[in-house]
């Protein structure tokens, strides 16, 4: 199951605004783009619900959610 597409869709419409979703790079810094702690919380709730994963509490930190690629890697790791 592709998780990047729905994840990008959620992050880039709900948490970080950009005019053209296709133009936002997978390595761009989401925190610099405006995602705050509330955004991180919503993102985790979304990911756990949509991808049926449990993301460990101790791994919730800025580096886990810093970019689309970081997020995909983090979620994939717990999807096994």
């Amino acid at each position, binding site marked *: 199951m592709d998780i990047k597409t729905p994840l990008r869709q959620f992050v880039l*419409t*709900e*948490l970080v*605004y*950009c*005019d053209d979703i296709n133009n936002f790079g997978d390595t761009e810094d989401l*925190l610099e783009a*405006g995602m*705050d*702690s*509330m955004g*991180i*919380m*919503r993102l*985790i*709730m979304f990911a756990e619900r949509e991808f049926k994963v449990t*993301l460990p*509490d*101790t791994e*919730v*930190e*800025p580096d886990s959610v810093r970019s689309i690629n970081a997020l995909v890697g983090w979620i994939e790791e717990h999807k096994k």
Partner: protein
Amino acid sequence: MNLVTGIEHQCITNPFAIAIRENQRAINYQQLSLKIGAVVQLLQRAGIPSGSRIGLAMDRGLDTVCVLLGVLSAGCCYVPLDIKSPAKRRQFIVNDAGVAAVIGCGECPHEYQNFGWLDYNSVSDHELDVSIHQADQLATILYTSGSTGSPKGVALSHRAIHAFSHWAQQLVNLRNTDCIASLTPLFFDLSTFDIFASLSTGACIDFVPAQLTMAPSQLSAWLSQHRISGFYTVPSVLGFLALKGNLEKTPLQDLRFVLFAGEVFPTRLLKTLINYLPNTEFYNFYGPTETNVCVYWRVEPDTLLEQTPIPIGHPACGNQLKIAENTGELLVKGPTVMSGYWSKKTLHAVLADQQWYATGDQVSINEKGEYCYHGRLDRMLKCSGYRVEPAEIEHVLLSLPEVTNCAVIGVSDETAGQRPAAAVVLQPETTIQALRRKLSQQLPHYMIPSRWKILPALPLLKNGKTDYLSISNLFVTAK
């Protein structure tokens, strides 16, 4: 009663107890009194008369508390400046407040060049004389989002803040052995608990590193290691802690009480948090900046139902409450109510004696006699505890040449509170990203709309006014 008397008393009777901690730094009450004295001397040497307003260009922290208390000890009023907000906004505030000086650390930033800069780094410790002030004197002006398009200054007297902090001390039985975690910026009225209730009891304030709000398990570890016994913050911070704070493995045994305010705490998240912290007392505090806390509810865990919002409770701080018959609006009268709005360098006492302050919030009383909150009667939003007037965002948007028309509404989310969203009519070839860049030069980050719709024209009601309901629906169906 003024706000510094109790703290000065602690400096004399409790000199070697730790007053403030921030990361690796800590000062005791004796050192605190010397720092306060240093600030008083700094202001006196600059020839600043008692009664002046002083801008604080410093982020929350140990030094800032020393400066703030020094400003009060010198008989002046502190005006917190949000260092994360755009320069233009801070400049508006120092100008509107009519500050006699701005205190900060190091070189004067360009935006304060015409306002008399005082460098806190240049002071040296100085003996503190006991200060004498009138209780009606203004202690602070807290600028919040204004519906007329500019920030609005809420002027609070020593008496009003003291009424709250003294009441809160009694409520949670604050002691000199308590250690209070502080996370709130100074321009939020929540910070008055951390500073004045704690320090006048002889307790210790410990500043939470800001980055921990993004890593809840690190926040809980910090609360545990620092043996925090009390914490007053917004539900969004606590909700994240409940969901991902690793609380199962991090018992917070020292945490006696948690106070929260600023937005509605989703009951489901509150229940989760209480399950992890069965020995902690929880209190829901309610009140706009204009009244500080005027209603409170001690959380009764057994009564919580996931689908039912928690009540705001009973009158607090000796205030009287009343519900307006036609609208259901909550009206407040009593000791914590503001002195008035501050604008254009003057206090505007909007309430005559014995008048009620109208909160703009719709409430009712339930079968247990508790007040319950139902929402705003106007358009104001609460975004992560921040108060946001959509009209202020619209005003800034309309001042941009690229924007022909706009309407800002709030979209709700499942965590807590709302976020601003904007529907805009634009000149050709304008991008939202360009607009956001311009907005961020004038508005703080929490006021920048997170969702946007470009429309050919705004939907209107038959009377020609903007149809905000249709605009809200555009954002709902887009999900």
